[in-house]
């Protein structure tokens, strides 16, 4: 039931997107007055439900939506409409005139006339009335007249004129990921007692067909609890938590454990990393100077927050690609702020700041657009658009033109670094505050000028005439004309005046320092007045344009021109059109690609082993029905990421013990041991040593790193006023934050993280490949971070359990490995402690395989 309600809300939201151009005129004018002619025709072509919802969205939602809820009323879903507000039910379905909504729109009741400032037009009210009569249905996404393309060329399967069908002579159309996404039936299995949820049935059904497959035993409760905790939050649980978990006899104890983990703020910290790898997040530009980007973290925090509040993935997609087109001008509420910050997705790629020096701006712009096209292709579609930058794809049904059709959606983008992220109240506050200061400063300026003028006049009176005002030259000097040079003024002032001026200047400086700045972000928006034509580039060369193309989706599915509705003169609307298509039923990739990433995050390998390549050179899905079922489940749950992860983590498949089977992952879906990722390993070291600082978000923390590492880019040896060059280590007490919050530069990388396979953050990374190499052993044995952590851990143990070696030893094992030592381990460790320190024992445990691998 919960899901159904959510679904309805989702539909509204999609409907809102369809009509988002209306919101730009919402506050001032009625839609019909401000719409250009063609737009009016568009509106007329829409179904009654589309029109009605568009009106609600344009005129009502700003006060009766998810943010404001005036009078306890929301008008953003059928459910809310029915439920009504403080005054009771808003509508009576099929009784338009009798509805409270219509009464208040018409103002028939004197004390309730909505909207308060400007009434809806008679025809708008009539539309809503008719809509309520007809059942007040929310429009289905596919209903829109806008999404239909009359008389246009059809998809490659239905139309012989489809360019992809012609280009590849009808071949390549059997690519598995092109198949429409339909929900497969959950299969029946013989061993009906084994499966816990549908995932298990899909898997077991396969295994029952294949005699070489066998079910692994369940993992021990302790192993499973630790596994789920590290998988979901990136942090190992405390000993107390584990012991409480193990002593709880409730049969639902694991489900509750998982629910709690999913609601921990650290869940977002862990899973943001997955997405940030995909979008190649970095805090710096790369290239020559690799300047720090002081605002990039806002996007990083947006991703953390999105995961934590389970922002539906379609909204997440929409906001990153076109958040700015959903917001017009400065943000009015926190939701709008977030949407603007989400456009950081379009900004986080590498960028060379020095191109203008060498007249290479065009080259750099072409690279930005290519990068956006290719990253968007990889991240959302699992498609390789890098190949068709230069030529038709060698194996996939993608043409050279397809790259540029997609690129055209981004053609008008421009940086929006000057856009204020502050909410209206705050903006007003800042403006008022600064205006007051400015007025004070101006008074002081007048005072200073007056003192100086009188001093100069005095000086002139006492001085002998100079050449300039020699009467023989026929000219006289005028003290008020040009401002006299600084030193002349200084000379003119007596001691008392100098002091007064200097006091006033001091005060002026103080006032100026009190000026407040608007908050800015790393944002993107459109330049709708200058939308360049996109050309196909010969061999991808920006200097060799060929024929022009219009914005469009992959031609194999939708060869026509994309329907684009400009957003009220402030934006081209192109990216909204792209984002809508990304999450529409026409798109077979988006949902499959993201559920595969989630699966990979839990099993080490995806159902499709190549998460950024769902093309024909990529791996084929091993359990295609399971993939499709999960993708549909995602959509049906209102694109709830947590819902899908909960299914995965509570499945029986996930609960199996690790097995060392050469076919692990890809074939068997059983887990094998996995070396911890760089972040998880570092966070684990900080956790067991008690150093960890669990705060979330904010500007990145700069670790102390050896000077020789900084030398790796000469730019870091420099300094500048805005502190975007150089390296400025944060105070040592701030350095134990979780690894996600460490600064991530492009040309100098934190050695410990790099050693443990931190991926290159210049191109989309779909999957981390854990390596096992000797420098990792050297880092875990000898790095200063480890020394610091082991000393802290030894001290922690001493403080907690006192001086008894046996007790200390046990405590160290429990802290590090969440278990007591075995008899054998105890004996070995005791012997070691006769010769060596507690810190050395701590260090040894941090170096063990049990610590470095997730079971």
């Amino acid at each position, binding site marked *: 039931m919960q899901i159904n309600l959510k679904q309805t809300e989702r539909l509204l939201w999609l409907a809102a997107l369809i009509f988002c151009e209306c919101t730009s005129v919402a506050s001032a004018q009625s839609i019909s007055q401000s719409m250009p002619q063609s737009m009016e025709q568009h509106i007329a072509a829409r179904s009654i439900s589309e029109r009605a919802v568009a009106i609600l969205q344009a005129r009502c939602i700003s006060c009766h939506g998810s943010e404001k809820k005036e009078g306890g009323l929301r008008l953003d879903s059928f459910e809310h409409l029915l439920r009504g507000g403080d005054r009771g039910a808003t509508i009576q379905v099929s009784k338009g005139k009798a509805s409270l909504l219509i009464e208040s729109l018409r103002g028939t009741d004197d004390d309730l006339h909505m909207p308060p400032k400007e009434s809806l037009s008679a025809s708008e009210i009539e539309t809503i009335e008719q809509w309520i009569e007809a059942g007040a249905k929310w429009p289905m996404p596919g209903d829109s007249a806008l999404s239909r393309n009359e008389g246009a060329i059809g998809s490659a399967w239905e139309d012989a004129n489809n360019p992809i069908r012609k280009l590849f002579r009808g071949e390549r159309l059997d690519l598995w990921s092109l198949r429409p996404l339909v929900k497969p039936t959950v299969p029946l299995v013989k061993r009906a007692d084994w499966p816990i949820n549908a995932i298990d049935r899909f898997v077991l059904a396969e295994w029952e067909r294949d005699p070489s497959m066998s079910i692994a035993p369940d993992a021990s409760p302790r192993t499973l609890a630790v596994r789920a905790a590290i998988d979901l939050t990136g942090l190992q649980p405390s000993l107390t938590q584990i012991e409480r978990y193990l002593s709880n006899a409730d049969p639902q104890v694991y489900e509750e454990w998982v629910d709690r983990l999913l609601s921990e703020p650290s869940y977002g910290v862990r899973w943001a990393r997955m997405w940030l790898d995909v979008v190649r997040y970095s805090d710096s530009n790369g290239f020559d100077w690799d300047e720090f980007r002081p605002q990039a973290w806002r996007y990083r925090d947006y991703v953390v927050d999105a995961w934590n509040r389970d922002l539906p993935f379609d909204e997440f997609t929409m906001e990153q690609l076109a958040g700015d087109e959903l917001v017009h001008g400065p943000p009015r509420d926190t939701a709008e702020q977030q949407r603007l910050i989400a456009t950081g997705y379009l900004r986080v790629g590498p960028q060379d700041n020095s*191109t203008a020096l060498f007249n290479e701006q065009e080259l750099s712009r072409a690279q930005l657009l290519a990068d956006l096209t290719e990253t968007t292709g990889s991240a959302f579609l699992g498609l390789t658009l*890098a190949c068709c930058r230069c030529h038709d794809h060698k194996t996939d049904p993608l043409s050279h033109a397809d790259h540029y059709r997609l690129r055209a959606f981004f053609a008008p983008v421009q940086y929006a670094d000057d856009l204020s992220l502050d909410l209206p109240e705050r903006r007003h506050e800042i403006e008022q505050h600064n205006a007051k200061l400015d007025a004070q400063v101006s008074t002081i300026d007048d005072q200073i000028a007056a003192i100086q003028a009188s001093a100069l006049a005095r000086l002139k009176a006492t001085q002998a005439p100079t050449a300039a005002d020699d009467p023989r030259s026929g000219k006289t000097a005028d003290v008020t004309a040009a401002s006299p040079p600084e030193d002349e003024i200084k000379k003119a002032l007596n001691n008392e005046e100098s002091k007064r001026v200097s006091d006033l200047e001091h005060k002026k400086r103080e006032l100026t320092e009190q000026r407040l700045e608007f908050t800015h972000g790393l944002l993107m928006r459109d330049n709708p007045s200058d939308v360049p034509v996109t050309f196909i580039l010969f061999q991808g060369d920006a200097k060799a344009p060929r024929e022009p193309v219009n914005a469009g989706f992959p031609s194999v599915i939708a060869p026509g021109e994309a329907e684009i509705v400009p957003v009220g003169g402030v934006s081209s609307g192109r990216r909204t059109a792209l984002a809508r298509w990304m999450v529409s039923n026409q798109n077979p990739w988006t949902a499959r690609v993201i559920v595969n990433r989630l699966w990979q995050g839990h099993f080490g390998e995806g159902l499709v082993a190549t998460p950024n390549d769902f093309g024909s050179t990529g791996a084929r899905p091993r359990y295609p029905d399971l993939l499709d079922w999960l993708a549909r489940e995602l959509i049906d749950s209102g694109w709830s990421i947590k819902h899908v992860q909960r299914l995965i983590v509570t499945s029986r498949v996930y609960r199996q013990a690790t097995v060392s089977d050469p076919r692990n992952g890809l074939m068997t879906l059983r887990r*094998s041991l996995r070396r911890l990722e760089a972040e998880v390993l570092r966070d684990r070291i900080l956790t067991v040593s008690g150093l960890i600082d669990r705060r979330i978000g904010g500007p990145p923390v700069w670790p102390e790193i050896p000077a020789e590492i900084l030398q790796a*880019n000469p730019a870091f040896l420099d300094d500048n006023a805005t502190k975007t060059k150089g390296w400025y280590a944060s105070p040592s007490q701030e350095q134990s934050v979780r690894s996600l919050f460490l600064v991530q530069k492009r040309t100098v990388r934190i050695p410990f993280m790099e050693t443990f396979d931190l991926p290159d953050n*210049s191109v989309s990374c779909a999957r981390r490949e854990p390596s096992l190499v000797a420098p990792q052993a050297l880092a875990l044995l000898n790095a200063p971070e480890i020394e610091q952590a082991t000393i802290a851990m030894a001290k922690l143990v001493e403080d907690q359990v006192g001086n008894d070696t046996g007790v200390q030893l046990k405590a160290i094992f429990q802290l590090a490995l969440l278990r007591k030592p*075995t008899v054998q381990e105890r004996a070995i460790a005791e012997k070691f402690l006769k010769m060596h320190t507690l810190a050395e024992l701590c260090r040894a445990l941090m170096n063990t395989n049990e610590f470095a691998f997730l079971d």
Partner: protein
Amino acid sequence: MDSQLSRRATLSQMGAGFGTLAFNAIAANVAGADALLKRQPIDPLNPFAPRRSDFAPRAKSVIFLFMVGGPSQIDTFDFKPELQRLDGQPVPDSFRQALDKSPHANVFHGCENKLLASPYRWQRCGERGMWVSELFPFTAQQADELCFIHSMQAESNNHAPASYQLHTGDIRLGKASLGSWVTYGLGTENADLPGYVVLFDAGPLGGSGNYTNGFLPPAFQPTRLRDRGAPVLNLLPPERFSAGQRDSINLIQRLNMLHRDEHVGATELDARIATYELAYRMQSAAIEVGNFADEPQYQRQAYGIEHPDEHTQSFGRKCLLARRLVERGVRFVQLYDMPDKDGWDAHSKLTNNHTPRARWTDQPIAALLADLKQRGLLESTLVIWASEFGRTPMLQGDQGRQHNAAGFTIWMAGGGVKAGTQIGATDDIGLMATERPVQFRDLHATILSAMGLRYEELFFEVNGRQERLTGEAGSAKPLWDILV
């Protein structure tokens, strides 16, 4: 598909890790895979194990001497009498028009329309009488070993993109560097030392993006060695753990063995156990290679380690270390001449910039060539001297020169390259390559060919695309005529 899976399984059996990616590159279902499959697969537990080349290699190791910032070709190795004659004159129309028609028109950006003759004297050197300016008296003595390419071109006239292109084949950030590709293709000969080493005081412009493994498995990232003190970061334990290091490793290993007994068949655990032993061996091997005590005095002098200028000493130590590394089987040494943060980027006062930099590098480089030759290592070691671009014959600022990606000189020596040769040429004022322009991908194809690698078949599947150092298949043209 089935055979693909079984190979995948084989690799997994050896210990998961990056087996999949290596495997994808090796066994991807595409044309050319058959040829590749003949090459030994990469053992994920020992990624640096030496691998057979595709055909008989001319060179086994590479020493890449990267001159950061763009030394001027027309003041070093590309003598232009016409430029000397036209000093102070505007650029003759014919040269300017040819440049404007090329993709390199922006090279003129920021320059004055006024030629600046080289302030250096020139002489013909060696048996073939090749021109070398007075900046490089020591290198001049080795002229007969060198092969000059006078017609290099880069795609960008800006440091970082051009430098990325010379290292990785692409002006964009994020691709894999030559050293990573070579070690990915061939492994290395000495298990106790890293296969891909970088040496610098300050790194190149654009930082680690130049020498990164990029999308290649993390094992192929380079290791920076220092030429003084402990050669590798974290090589030695901190003071307080120093005495107990061996005991600690023993304890770790005993605990690991107990843990392993509970995970029968988990080879990744064995692999990690092995890394601790390797790390221990690496400590002594790295210290040994960085210890010059066994080098005779004359050698130290020859390399400039006793030179009064500390920058010469520093570069000399790096050149000597490079020789010691390749001597011990290290595959790829990338060496940068950055003692500060400027490099050869002489936008003003050319002589103030170039004269000392030549002094810091000339003697050590010549000593390296002579030493390699004397030890018989030169024939198996490819030495490359190059930069991201050259400089303009036009004046910029106060007696300076702007970047020039339109035409510049690099040289190679040893490793199967024809000694005492030169190919390509710039126009008469040294502005643009006019005779046989050579792109970086052609250079890369030549280097890989010298190493016995089929450059088109050395690829790696990234997000569904075959990435190659030499770019789009068919676009690179190796310089076969300079290889013996």
